[in-house]
């Protein structure tokens, strides 16, 4: 191996250039990963899902045992809540029927609220905790595409960063920066909704920053629900993002920012859903054009 000793400097320089080129290449805006990366990711994803089976089995037993301990108290509370829900179910059913009839009258088929859920399992989390990414076991073959929203039962947890053939990477809410904005709103009565944008995650207060664009008369109270508004992008409307923790003025005092605590726990996730909005953005534009022509 005298090659290494004699030409050490040359090897080092070439290596350094290769590294700089690679970093530069991958930092640029990439719509899709290269074929080699997709292949590696899918292969490793398959191995990971095999390994995940026993791991998931063990952690499941552990969490189950933890849950057994307070199952009695939980049952009591749930029974009480269930009684209240019965009336609510009837009301929701009525409203849904009415909504459907009204929609049929207006000849609206899809709304921003409709979506097709794609079930997925989390197979790994990036050890590089700065990046806040998890990998799920569905890909473009199952209909997953870049920028789709990912939710759990409790609420939004992130969006698809890259979609490969059989696996995809999810950028978690906690890793959002100013480039990953979500248009969101706080629903109020009689059209006094408050609109704004989720503009990244603040590590210090452990909350999302919801910049309020349109001020309304009312003040925002603690514990109010922030949901996605469905405007712009591919996110459906009405997905729960979190609850307001505190409202602070921004550095110039012109707008206000609400600190929003995410509703879903992004650290303990196994099953997720990728939501494919039924109403395409493209279709929306086409509809508008049709209206203009008329």
């Amino acid at each position, binding site marked *: *191996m005298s090659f290494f000793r004699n030409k050490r400097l040359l090897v080092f320089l070439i290596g350094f250039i290769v590294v700089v080129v*690679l970093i530069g290449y991958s930092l640029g805006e990439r719509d899709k990963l290269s074929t080699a*990366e997709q292949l590696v990711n899918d292969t490793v994803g398959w191995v*990971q899902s095999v390994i995940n089976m026993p791991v998931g089995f063990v952690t499941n037993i552990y969490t189950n045992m933890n849950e057994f301990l307070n199952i009695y108290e939980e049952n009591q509370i749930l029974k009480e809540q269930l009684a209240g829900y019965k009336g609510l179910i009837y009301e929701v059913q009525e409203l849904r029927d009415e909504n459907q009839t009204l929609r049929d009258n207006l000849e609206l088929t899809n709304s921003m609220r409709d979506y097709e859920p794609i079930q997925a399992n989390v197979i*790994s989390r990036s050890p590089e905790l*700065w990046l806040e990414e998890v*990998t799920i076991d569905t890909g473009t073959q199952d209909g997953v595409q870049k920028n789709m929203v990912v939710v759990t039962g409790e609420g939004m947890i992130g969006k698809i960063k890259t979609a490969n053939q059989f696996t995809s990477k999810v950028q978690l809410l906690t890793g959002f920066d100013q480039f990953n904005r979500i248009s969101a709103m706080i629903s109020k009565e009689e059209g006094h909704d408050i609109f704004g944008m989720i503009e990244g995650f603040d590590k210090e207060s452990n909350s999302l920053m919801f910049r309020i664009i349109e001020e309304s008369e009312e003040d925002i109270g603690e514990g109010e629900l922030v949901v996605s508004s469905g405007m712009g992008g591919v996110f459906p409307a009405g997905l729960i993002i979190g609850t307001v923790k505190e409202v602070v003025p921004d550095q110039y005092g012109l707008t206000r920012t609400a600190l929003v605590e995410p509703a879903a726990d992004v650290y303990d996730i196994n099953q997720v859903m990728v939501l494919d909005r039924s109403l395409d953005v493209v279709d929306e534009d086409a509809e508008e054009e049709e209206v203009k022509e008329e």
Partner: protein
Amino acid sequence: MNRLYIPLFLFLILVLEGVATFFLPADLIMGELLIVPHWLLAGLVFVVLYYDSENTYFALMYAVIFGLLFDMIYTSILGVYMFSYATVIYIIHLLKKMLHINFFSMILFHIIGIGAGDLLIYFVYNITDLVDMAWNDYLLDRLLPTIGLNLIFVLVIYPFLKKQLVKWRTTEQWK
């Protein structure tokens, strides 16, 4: 056949790193601390200490290959882990001559390796603006806990791995 065991073992570590954070208690991850498993780097340090001789560069080769795989699978920013792992393994390859390898020097090499590796990653991520973290926060919240928890992993696999690597090396030399 023997030559295949080490890449297979490193690949297994690489895959397991992805589920490593599921085992840590949620409080630990939720809090301020950022504990990053550098198991692959620890495995590579073992290879350079107990498998490589002075003139072989197996660990360096594996560092480049598996570092690049790590970048592809977990970060999608190619080159960062490859660069830092390869540099660290090369430095340890040079330092290895200076110390007689026993249990304590092994621990010392691991501290140097994981510390330098994570520092290099911080440095590269910082100059590419991917991470904005003050030096003090980084030192206390990430570097020290990371070294600490990875040393536990090193101590757990040390007895098993050392024996195997020495065995593989001797069978390799007989050929």
